[in-house]
């Protein structure tokens, strides 16, 4: 049996532990799809696979138990999925009957967002679609996740880029009845950015995370939604060396800025990646170049919206597996 593993991996097929058997990865940008696609996935799993699918942490499907010699046949069948879930978002695919054009950049995951969740500050699935169109297909190994609010239910903090929705709460003191529901709640679940002074509420804009909880809690619509924007956290990772939570890079950034920065990050990777390695994650590239280089290149040509703030420096968190002197 002769199989070009590099080629099939790039085509979103796995080399599995069972010889001659592969597993198909399906991308679902934003983790939300019309159920009609499930019929096709079911058909593939029943006809070619072992009748099961695996739901991945990245909100894709893996269909295991497929013979490698069926790859071309199944790629043909996949055309409607690639059309509906990729090309319709604006992803450039030259031949939709040839399977996925790349697998390095992973599916863009998103929490359920404001299509359902009351806390969400925006439509996460929709933004995931825009990001997908911007960065896919691409071979660089990059993980991006999008959450509707700083709760970060999709765990953007474990991604190379985590996007979280923010909203500027706008206060109308004429409508405030002084119940302090917002003040107490911000202290309990968020950052304690609100205080009650002279029977009215004061917001410390440097503390506020833009979660929008105050808007949700106010019985009188004294808080309403102002400009919606984003926080970008970067270089979170798991892995076998140095796991860490992502750190905030941008706050109160608008959508144009976010998309440009993501695009710029690919150029940065392209410029600095160590091509002698089979693959290098962007976080390790930043470890080599240092944060200032990343910041400069990520913001190259970007006009920041006036409210946006950028991290002046980084104190990366995380730990190293090999430093285990506490294990006795």
């Amino acid at each position: 049996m002769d199989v070009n593993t590099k080629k099939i991996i790039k085509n979103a097929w796995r080399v599995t532990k069972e010889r001659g058997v592969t597993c198909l990865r399906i991308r679902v940008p934003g983790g939300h799809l019309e159920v009609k696609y499930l019929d096709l996935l079911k058909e593939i799993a029943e006809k070619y696979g072992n009748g099961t699918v695996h739901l991945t942490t990245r909100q894709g499907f893996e269909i295991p138990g497929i013979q490698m010699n069926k790859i071309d046949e199944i790629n043909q069948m996949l055309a409607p999925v690639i059309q509906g879930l990729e090309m319709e978002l604006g992803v450039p695919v030259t031949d939709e009957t040839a399977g996925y054009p790349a697998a390095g950049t992973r599916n863009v995951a998103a929490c359920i967002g404001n299509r359902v969740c009351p806390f969400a500050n925006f439509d996460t699935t929709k933004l995931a679609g825009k990001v997908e169109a911007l960065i896919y297909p691409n071979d660089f190994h990059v993980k991006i996740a999008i959450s509707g609010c700083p709760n970060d239910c999709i765990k953007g903090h474990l991604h190379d880029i985590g996007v979280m929705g923010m909203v500027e709460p706008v206060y109308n003191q004429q409508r405030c009845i002084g119940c302090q529901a917002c003040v107490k709640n911000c202290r309990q679940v968020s950052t304690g950015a609100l205080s009650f002074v002279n029977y009215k509420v004061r917001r410390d804009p440097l503390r506020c995370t833009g979660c929008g909880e105050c808007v949700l809690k106010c019985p009188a619509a004294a808080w309403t939604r102002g400009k919606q924007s984003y926080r970008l956290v970067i270089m979170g990772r798991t892995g076998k060396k140095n796991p860490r939570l992502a750190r905030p890079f941008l706050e109160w950034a608008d959508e144009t800025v976010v998309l440009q920065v993501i695009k710029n990050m690919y150029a940065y990777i392209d410029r600095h990646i160590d091509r002698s390695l089979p693959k290098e994650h962007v976080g390790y590239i930043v470890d080599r170049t240092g944060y200032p280089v990343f910041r400069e290149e990520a913001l190259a040509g970007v006009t920041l919206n006036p409210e946006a703030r950028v991290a002046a420096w980084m104190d990366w968190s995380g730990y190293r597996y090999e430093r285990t002197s506490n294990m006795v």
Partner: protein
Amino acid sequence: MGFALTTEQFDAFLAGLARDYDIYAPKRLAGKGAFSGTDLIAYAPVQSLAEIVFDRKTFYSPKEILLPISQTLFYFTEEAYREPQQQQRPVIIFLRPCDVHAVKRLDQIYLHNGDQADPYYRERREKVKFFVMECTEGFDSCFCVSMGTNRTGEYAVFLRLEADRVLCDARPEFTPALAAYGREAPFTPAFIEQNKISVKTPEKIAPAVYGHPLWSEYDSRCIACGRCNVCCPTCTCFTMQDIFYEDNPRCGERRRVWAGCMIDGFTDLAGGHSFRNKYGERMRFKALHKVYDFKKRFGDHMCVGCGRCDDVCPEYISFSRIINRLAEVSDDE
């Protein structure tokens, strides 16, 4: 007298009125809903018919026009104090029959409870004209028919919106203006005669009802957020606040701000004493105020059955169900 106006004619009529009146109506405030991507239907100034929302109930009631959420009673300067200049222009409010009745409830408290009328309220109240929006379908949570608030004759203009025209019934005060823009046409206002929900109000409350287990359900279900008070067109309570200005502590103001009996602090006395600490007790207090105490004192129920408190409760507590349960246990006791 009846009139028919095309949409354009009605807008011209409104534009004419705007010279003398501030005009408030239910309006869609884009993006102002609490949840992202949602709108708030609330009272706001309008200029044209297209801005007026007929097919949705407002989240907040029109009472805020008569009774501002936060109202300065007077300003203090170093030595003297002065009342705010009211200079309130006359106001037209587009509202449904239940909300007209609700204003009558506000009148009871602010004009007729005790021997002194509230001058701030009276000043605004005297300048208000009602433009009643015909309401024959209602909404899922309404129970105005049970509360007897589905009909009203108290309007300056009564209007029905049709596909491309507005039918109006006007009191003499407004007939010349309507005649100037539209043409005469027979029109008899219609009212809703049956809601999806009906309630039975309690006749007599036995002492046992106060401690009835019915209320304890709300100890845990209710979160005391006060939305039901704030959205209610008939809740009238307020708290006094004195403040000084930060940039000049010798000057300040005394104002009043809406209060609600479901919200913490409503009964707080100095020294930490308070009443109705359990949310179920607050619910009992509110429910009895709405459908028992007020009637005992003034002759009408306070609640007008607009159903807003049902619509806005984040914990899906239905006030109409509470009324019916209350009536049931009162019959039993």
